[in-house]
């Protein structure tokens, strides 16, 4: 079965990293952080702070609440581009863009994923409100592009069907 599930190991099985590599990773990361720190200057460069509450929120309503969205308007000026059918839910290409002036923030949410929030962009001046990335989808679902502009929330959505594929195994 080729359908992507977030809860099962894949068809080939997955090896857990051995301890040696884990340790090496930790060491590398310690060193890496020093480098990153010096490169990026003050850590507040990460304007978009990673918030567990929003990424771990279950269900669309909770995820929106955690993002501080009370209500939003569906807008024709926001678009979600993807294929209507995904051959594999593990990799679903998605482009989002907003033609609303002063778009300052965009997020991609997968309505039926256990944790809907997938990725969010803080948009600095000079950067277009248009991004392409790839997301995992556990099942057929709407993909929601959420936009913040002038303090208001807008959105667009598109359904992507996740299909079973291959020779069944």
């Amino acid at each position, binding site marked *: 079965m080729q359908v992507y599930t977030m809860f099962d190991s894949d068809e080939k099985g*997955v090896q857990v990293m051995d301890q040696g590599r884990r340790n090496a990773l930790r060491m590398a990361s310690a060193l890496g952080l020093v480098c990153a720190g010096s490169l990026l200057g003050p850590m507040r460069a990460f*304007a978009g702070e990673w918030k567990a509450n929003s990424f771990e929120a279950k269900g669309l309503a909770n995820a929106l609440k955690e993002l501080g969205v009370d209500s939003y308007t569906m807008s024709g000026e926001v678009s979600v581009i993807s294929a209507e059918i995904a051959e594999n839910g593990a990799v679903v290409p998605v482009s989002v863009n907003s033609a609303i002036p002063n778009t300052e923030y965009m997020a991609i949410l997968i309505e039926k994923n256990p944790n809907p929030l997938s990725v969010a962009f803080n948009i600095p001046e000079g950067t277009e409100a248009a991004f392409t990335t790839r997301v995992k989808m556990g099942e057929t679902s709407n993909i929601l592009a959420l936009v913040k502009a002038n303090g208001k929330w807008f959105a667009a959505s598109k359904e992507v069907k996740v299909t079973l594929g291959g020779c069944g195994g």
Partner: protein
Amino acid sequence: MAEPMRIRAKLNGDTVEVKVLIRHDMETGKRKDPSGKVIPPHFIKTLIAKCKEKTVLDTVMGISVSKDPFLSFKFKGGALGDKVTVTWVDNTDDTRTDEATIS
């Protein structure tokens, strides 16, 4: 241990189009290995791109971004020969920075 990214930055008129490919497992923490043991989460949380010290992209990610993430975006203000620097940090505090020259 993190492997290098593949970054392309191309100037089109006054806009620079950046495409980033990252080697990362983006493990959800919800899958099990064949022995039934849960595979710990391992995913990128933040990604920042800069050009001449100015932040041009500021991203936060969750476990549902695909393995070996791909990201493309566009910004204004970059010139031929300028460098675009991309840095990610994951949930194990592993990090990687790479750069590309705008062409």
